[in-house]
C-alpha cells in the first residue's frame, strides 16, 4: 500500500517536472525570438517562435510575437493570421487587436 502511494507520488513529481521543463523551454524560445526580433534577425525569430508553437500551440504570446515579426517583414497576410490566432486564444490582447485593426481596417 505504502509502496503504491510512493510510486504514484514519484509519477506525479515526474509529470510536474515535465510540465515545468516544457514551460521553461517555451519561455526560453519566446525570449530568443524576441532577442532576434530586436536585432532585426526576423527569419531567426520566426524559427524560434515556430519551434515554441510546436510545444505549446495554445500560447497567445507566441502568435502575437510571430505577428509582429511578419509585419516587420512586410508580410501583412501572415501577420494578420497570427494576430487573429493570438486573439482567439486571448481576446483581451490589446496589442494584437491594435495591430490587426491597422492591417485589416476597423
Amino acid at each position: 500500500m505504502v509502496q503504491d502511494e510512493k510510486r504514484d507520488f514519484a509519477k506525479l513529481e515526474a509529470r510536474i517536472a515535465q510540465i515545468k521543463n516544457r514551460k521553461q523551454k517555451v519561455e526560453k524560445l519566446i525570449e530568443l525570438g524576441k532577442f532576434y526580433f530586436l536585432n532585426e534577425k526576423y527569419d531567426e525569430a520566426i524559427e524560434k517562435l515556430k519551434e515554441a508553437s510546436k510545444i505549446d500551440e495554445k500560447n497567445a504570446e507566441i502568435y502575437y510575437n510571430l505577428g509582429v515579426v511578419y509585419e516587420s517583414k512586410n508580410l501583412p497576410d501572415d501577420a494578420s493570421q497570427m494576430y487573429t490566432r493570438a486573439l482567439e486564444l486571448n481576446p483581451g490582447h490589446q496589442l494584437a487587436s491594435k495591430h490587426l485593426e491597422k492591417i485589416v481596417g476597423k
Partner: protein
Amino acid sequence: MIQCVVLGLGIFGASVARALAEKGCEVLAIDEDEEKVKEISDVVTQAVQADATDEKVLRALGVDKMDAAIVSTGEDMEASILITLLMKELGIKTIVAKAISPSHGTVLRKVGATRVVFPERDTGVRLAESLAAPDILEHISLSPEYSILEVRAPKSFIGSTLREIDVRAKHGVDIIAIKKKLPYLTDAGESDFKEEILITPNADEEIADGDILVVLGTNRKIDKLRSL
C-alpha cells in the same frame, strides 16, 4: 489655420472632419442626423444638426466666412448639387464635392465645385492595383513616364548600404526615402515596432529586411528594379 465646413457626416464626411480637426483646422460639421452630430461633437470645433440646403441657416452659422467647404452628401445627389451651388453663392473659394458617378461629378463641377472626388472609384482602382502588384505599396504618377513608388526592398539589397547598391548608376532610379521599422520592447516587455522615415537617406544607410523604399524614376526602370 484654415476654417472648413463639412456638410454631411457619413463615413467619408466624418473621416474628413476628424482628419482636418487633428491637423489643427477649425472645423464646422453639419448634418441632419442628431446621432452623427453627437458622435463628432467632441472632435471638431463646432458640430451642428441642421438642414445644409437652407441658405439662411448656413449664413447664421457663418458658413460664408469659411475658407473651404467639403460637400460629402454624395448619396443624396440632389442635396449635394444644391449644397455645392449654395457654397458657390456664399462665396467660398475652395469647394470639394463628393460624387458617386461621372455625370454627378460633371454637374457638381458646373455648379461650382472646385474639386470633385470619387472615393469609391479611387478606392476601387487602388485596391485593384495593390492586388495586381502586391509589392507596390503606393504609386504616385508624376507624368506618363515618371513615377514615385513605394516598394518592398528587394531581397538582394538587404544587408547592403545605399553606396554599395548604387541604384542610380546600376538601375537608373533614385531612392528618395526609406521607411524603416524599429523593433523595441514595451514597458511590459512586449515586442512592438516604431515606424521611421529617412528622407534623402545617407549613402552609408544599410537596407534591412522589411524596409520600404520610396523610389523615383521612369516606369520602365522601376519595373526592372521590382523584378530583382
